[in-house]
């Protein structure tokens, strides 16, 4: 321990009875409870905290709050690494580990600082002017170097171990900022009895007043607000954005300050607060003065210096020069004096020093010098003094701290998030909130109240820093001006002014004022750049909340899912579901399994879980009429008890989905959709029922979750089912293909569809989901074996049934060989757009089958079809949509969409897969590979 040499008396926030140990760059230090990392380092006399972005200039503390541009630190904790954290916002806890950034090999001796030496060669935007040659690949070389030099801290690649949470909250009044102004608002609103939420990013309420030597005056107000049960105070919570509908988004740092982290509790919490009224009381941000070397460690904001002394008893140095252009600098001088720290002089830029403040200063033996502004700092390893211009003459003052105040800029940020721009008020010299949306108001320092008039001194010091973090100097602003980047937005982007982690909180005003002076435009016309959320950077973890990792999306489960998982189903993602690809036996791979399973269906019987199908009940006097308009295929003539295949289009004539329609009663239909389109089809039907034809009396209810569905397919399906529910029920005479019948299985009514996807005799059992697993087990017990979605795909490809890869959002019924289903003599969704010339064009790709010329060759989905097998590039006439090895054919087969399909029939073309260097000669054949007559349905 090297003692806290710069700890002084006072410090209203720290608890000297509670020393805390911490490390900075590996070196141990001690601070007190209540300290921030910044104040503790200051108390320990550590002045060098970081290196700047571009020139690697040594930097120290500049501010005391979230506006800090320089002191960016990496904190490591419990295996987590948090780079770019402002030392001013890190509350000290025992064992804190912090390291500096952007310096190598060490903060004190940083090789990167050579960029400072060559800085004349690398002004703003230099990279736009070079690194272009000699060849066009040159940039890739230079870029690698530049990227290594750029960036601030290192990001860990280890998974974040913390958890994050989210809270939706509601309050009649939300107040941002718990300074005096916000507290008063909270108190007033609280008295009306409504719910009030008061947000402040600091550890405790009080705001600016806490920086005063004596802040006891605010204590009663704080206590009164705390006592109000209807007022919630959120401390350590940054309101980072205002969004539509009077929503305040904020992030609460729940555990970052705690010595021991509760792993179960969230580290941070995202608050989404809905208000009837938002009051912004965000205060003001002190601005720097412009002089050569104003970025040196030891040069800091006058207001911040007060805070370190008064709140933490930490001395920024041992001898201070105050440089100010407003009255607030004097308070800083008094605080230094009160702490026993000598004040060399107050350099006041104004023509006359203010009375009685100046008198008060002189009484304390402080020299007050009017018409004085710093020209440059004297720095060698540490700050030694300043050279000032005093009424035209040069004078030197010794010091190791410069406390500067360039005035206070209201923190207008949140007032502009909904699109307003702040207005420049000439008389006060500041940008103030303007054009506020209804429901939002501003109070306190944010409106300029209590702030001194602001006057930005233009500076001729070329190497005065405007943006400390991004190393933008007056010279850069001048260069931007010279080169025509004069709009503030161009200035920002060309020089990177205000684009750092502090978003120019202490830079933008000086930058735009300098540009205004150069162009001769008034500041009002120059304007600000756009303020955007977040107000201060917010962790991505907090924004992501609970919905990460496995919770990114819900996982939908069929009622039979547990069984698949427990019985060897190889599960694969399918949209929001996971479905069994197949059930490989020990030693069997999935390819073998799917072929075995497909054979089983063709030869005997198999069962597959198709619960993921969408299912919709359409009821009402106009149900038939409604569905007739929804499907392009015929609906109205469907008899009660019968079912049929149906196709529906989007209004642009493209196929949207296909499925089964069954008529349960005169006014009652049961329809299925594909798994992938279920939600879309439901919304589509609701749209047309509610918006297009509200006069139709129809009700549309999703029963996707009400019914589990099991397809029982294969020549032995009838026999199998008869065993469970009696042979009579499955008599072809009373239960023909295709139809729907309600049949009791084990005491439960099951909707049985005689429909077939495989081409074999098949039944789909739609059973109330609670009973689906039990029915599945009964089927197994009766001798059935399961098959998965891969076998299902084989079966449908052999039959030439289209599915997702063919119904890809571009294909029309004709493209898919479904033209004969379309009833142009009725009105339906999509009819009119089918009649466009481009839709009728024969060159549109349409469905065909492909068989390999050499039967051993595999045809892959995603292969492109060409007429030739030579040449790296070749015109494509279509592509393979689906493919498999066909057990019935004994060779690979595929479905494809190709141009001029009719002409191409029986021709040999090439399925090319250059991604794997494969070319397969294939013959264009019918898309139906198996049982074109449909005889198997009745076997």
């Amino acid at each position, binding site marked *: 321990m090297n003692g806290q040499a710069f700890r002084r008396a006072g410090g209203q926030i720290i608890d000297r009875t509670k020393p805390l140990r911490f490390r900075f760059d590996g070196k141990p230090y001690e601070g007190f409870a209540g300290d921030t990392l910044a104040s503790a380092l200051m108390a320990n006399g550590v002045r060098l905290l970081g290196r700047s972005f571009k020139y690697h200039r040594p930097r120290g503390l500049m501010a005391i709050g979230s506006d800090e541009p320089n002191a960016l630190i990496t904190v490591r904790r419990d295996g987590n690494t948090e780079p*770019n954290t402002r030392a001013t916002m890190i509350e000290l806890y025992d064992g804190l580990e912090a390291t500096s950034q952007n310096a190598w090999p060490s903060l004190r001796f940083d090789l990167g600082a050579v960029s400072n030496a060559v800085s*004349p060669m*690398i*002004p703003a935007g*230099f*990279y*736009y002017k*070079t*690194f*272009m040659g000699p060849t066009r690949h040159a*940039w*890739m070389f230079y870029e690698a170097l*530049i*990227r290594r030099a750029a*960036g*601030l801290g290192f*990001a*860990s690649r280890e*998974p*974040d171990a913390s958890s994050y949470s989210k809270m939706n909250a509601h309050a009649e009044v939300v107040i941002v900022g718990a300074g005096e102004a916000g507290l008063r608002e909270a108190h007033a609103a609280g008295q009306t009895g409504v719910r009030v939420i008061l947000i402040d990013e600091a550890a405790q309420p009080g705001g600016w007043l806490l920086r005063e030597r004596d802040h006891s005056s605010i204590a009663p107000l704080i206590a009164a607000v705390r006592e109000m049960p209807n007022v919630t105070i959120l401390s350590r919570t940054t309101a980072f954005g205002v*969004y539509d509908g009077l929503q305040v988004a904020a992030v609460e740092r729940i555990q970052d300050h705690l010595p021991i982290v509760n792993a179960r509790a969230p580290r941070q919490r*995202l608050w*989404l607060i809905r208000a009837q009224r938002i009051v912004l009381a965000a205060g003001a941000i002190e601005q720097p003065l412009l002089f050569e070397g104003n970025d040196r460690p030891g040069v800091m904001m006058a207001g911040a210096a007060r805070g370190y002394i008064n709140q933490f008893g930490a001395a920024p140095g041992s001898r201070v020069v105050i440089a100010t252009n407003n009255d607030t600098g004097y308070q800083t001088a008094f605080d230094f004096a009160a702490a026993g720290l000598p004040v060399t002089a107050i350099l006041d830029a104004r023509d006359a020093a203010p009375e009685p403040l100046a008198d008060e200063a002189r009484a304390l033996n402080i020299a007050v010098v009017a018409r004085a502004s710093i020209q440059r700092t004297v720095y060698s390893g540490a700050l030694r003094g300043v050279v000032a211009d005093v009424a035209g003459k040069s004078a030197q003052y010794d010091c190791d701290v410069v406390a500067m105040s360039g005035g206070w800029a209201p923190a207008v940020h949140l007032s502009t*998030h909904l*699109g307003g721009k702040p207005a420049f008020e000439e008389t006060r010299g500041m940008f103030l909130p303007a054009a506020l949306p209804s429901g939002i108001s501003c109070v306190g320092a944010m409106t300029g109240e209590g702030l001194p008039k602001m006057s930005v001194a233009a500076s001729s010091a070329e190497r005065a820093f405007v943006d400390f973090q991004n190393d933008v100097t007056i010279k850069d602003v001048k*260069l931007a001006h010279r080169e*025509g*980047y004069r*709009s503030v937005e*161009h200035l920002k*982007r*060309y020089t990177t002014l205000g*684009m750092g*982690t502090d*978003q120019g909180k202490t830079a933008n005003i000086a930058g735009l004022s300098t540009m205004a002076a150069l162009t001769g435009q008034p500041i009002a016309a120059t304007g600000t750049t756009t303020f955007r959320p*977040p107000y201060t*950077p*917010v962790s*991505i*973890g907090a*924004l*992501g909340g609970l*919905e*990460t990792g*496995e919770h990114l999306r819900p996982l939908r489960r069929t009622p039979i899912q547990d069984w698949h998982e427990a019985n060897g189903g190889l599960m694969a*993602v*399918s949209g929001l579901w996971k479905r069994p690809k197949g059930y490989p036996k020990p030693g069997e791979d999935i390819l073998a399994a799917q072929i075995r399973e497909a054979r089983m269906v063709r030869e005997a019987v198999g069962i597959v879980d198709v619960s993921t199908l969408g299912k919709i009940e359409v009821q009402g006097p106009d149900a038939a009429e409604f569905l007739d308009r929804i499907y392009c295929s015929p609906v109205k003539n469907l008899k009660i008890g019968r079912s049929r295949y149906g196709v529906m289009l*989007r209004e642009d*004539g493209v196929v949207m989905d296909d499925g089964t329609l069954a008529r349960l009663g005169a006014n009652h239909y049961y329809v299925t959709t594909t798994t992938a389109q279920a939600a879309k089809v439901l919304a589509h039907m609701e749209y047309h029922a509610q918006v297009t034809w509200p006069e139709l009396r129809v009700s549309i209810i999703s029963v996707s979750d009400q019914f589990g569905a099991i397809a029982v397919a294969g020549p032995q399906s009838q026999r199998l089912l008869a065993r469970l529910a009696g042979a009579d029920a499955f008599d072809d005479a009373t239960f023909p293909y295709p139809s729907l019948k309600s049949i009791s299985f084990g005491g439960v009514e099951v909707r049985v569809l005689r429909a077939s996807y495989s081409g074999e005799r098949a039944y789909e059992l739609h059973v109330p989901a609670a009973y689906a697993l039990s029915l599945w087990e009964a089927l197994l017990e009766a001798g059935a074996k399961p098959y998965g979605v891969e076998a299902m795909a084989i079966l449908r490809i052999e039959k030439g049934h289209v599915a997702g890869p063919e119904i890809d959002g571009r294909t029309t019924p004709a493209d898919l060989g479904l033209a004969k289903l379309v009833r142009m003599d009725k009105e339906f969704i999509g009819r009119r757009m089918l009649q466009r*010339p*481009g*839709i009728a064009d024969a060159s549109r790709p349409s469905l065909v089958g492909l068989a390999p010329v050499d039967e051993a060759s595999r045809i892959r989905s*995603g292969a*492109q079809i060409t007429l030739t097998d030579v040449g*790296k*590039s070749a015109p*494509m006439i279509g*592509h*393979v949509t689906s493919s498999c090895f066909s057990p019935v054919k004994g060779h690979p087969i595929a479905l494809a969409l190709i141009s001029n399909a009719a002409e191409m029939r029986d021709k040999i073309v090439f399925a090319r897969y250059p*991604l794997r260097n494969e070319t397969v000669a294939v013959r264009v054949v019918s898309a139906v590979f198996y049982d074109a007559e449909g005889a198997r349905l009745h076997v």
Partner: protein
Amino acid sequence: MHILLLLLSMTSRYSAFRLFREALSAQKGWTPAWADAEPKSGYDAIIIGGGGHGLATAYYLAKLHGLRNVAVLEKGWIGGGNTGRNTTIIRSNYLLPQNAQFYEHCLKLWENLSLDLNFNVMFSQRGVLNLANSDAQMDAYARRGNAMRLSGIDSELLERDQVRRMVPHMDFSERARFPIYGGLLQKRGGTARHDAVAWGYARAASAFGVDIIQKCEVTGFRMADGRITGVETTRGFIGAERVGMAVAGHTSQVAAMAGLKLPIESQVLQAFVSEALKPFLDTVVTFGAGHFYISQSDKGGLVFGGDLDFYNSYASRGNMPMVEDVASAAMSLFPSLGPLRLLRSWGGIMDMTMDGSPIIGLTPVDNLYLNGGWCYGGFKATPGSGWVFAHTIATGTPHPLNAPFSLDRFETGRLIDDKGSGPYPWLH
């Protein structure tokens, strides 16, 4: 003579040598990158919109078609539209041949752009990796990758392990809701510095004599006999022989001034940038299943985004639900992102068309040309878009590369729907 030319070019050209020379004179010898022009009474061609597309169009009109009496009218500051707010991904990995051919032409222009413009647009061919999270997606990417290869465009289909070697810090654990199956990689894809594109084209166009006029909003068209005679602007009437519109998110508005109604809706898309970090990710990654994509800028910020906000807007800003969605996808793909911080978020106005592809070509008004409907993907098109649009304006007929992107394709049914989402622009 030659030496004189060389010396002349040395004075205005950008180079390392020049930077060095300027260092000796305190950078005082630089001149404006482009001349801030006052409007003349008339031009041979006026381009509305000083984004990348408008500026590129002017540049190619001057350079390739000898049309130099040209003005670009920009209502704000050049590059301040979507050019200035996009996530800068450049690729030509499209599925449909019309798109692939057009975007490949663009990509080829990108590869020479810095040298052509003598302005470093920092085109970085760091690769674009599209992750696949299911077998079906692998097949879809195979289809795309094969089509690309057969069109002479580079692409590679990666297996899970290959993806893992490229970007090991993505979530390859059991916890992943959407496991990574593999991906489609286009190595020649990458990113470029968006602002530099606007500035570089402006400077190069200006050097040819093109007038770049900022703070000049077009408020109407003056027409006679079904032809445009000029435009009304906030800086007065300006005559024009022909007019090209390249106003992205405001396409419907400007076209409406000429009586046109378009198959476009303007939606908001947000984008995000993190605090600057040392190198973390050296390629562009897109994560379709999570609706998320990410890259790292040269400054060190992670630049990322996701879906549209899904509502029409002209406000250039979005709302929290999409911020949360994007962040949760970010965390899910890169579980180490949690402690890293979002620095800034913003929005842009997307001119979403009814088939997700742009419209570049003729309009029902004789000498009025349309370039718009770029959706969220027009930055990568910038050079090629300007190139074909210049051709179309100069010759009065579309180039074969942009002929398919005609306005009348909606009427004829010859749509270019790469995503297959149909006439619901917010779904593209």
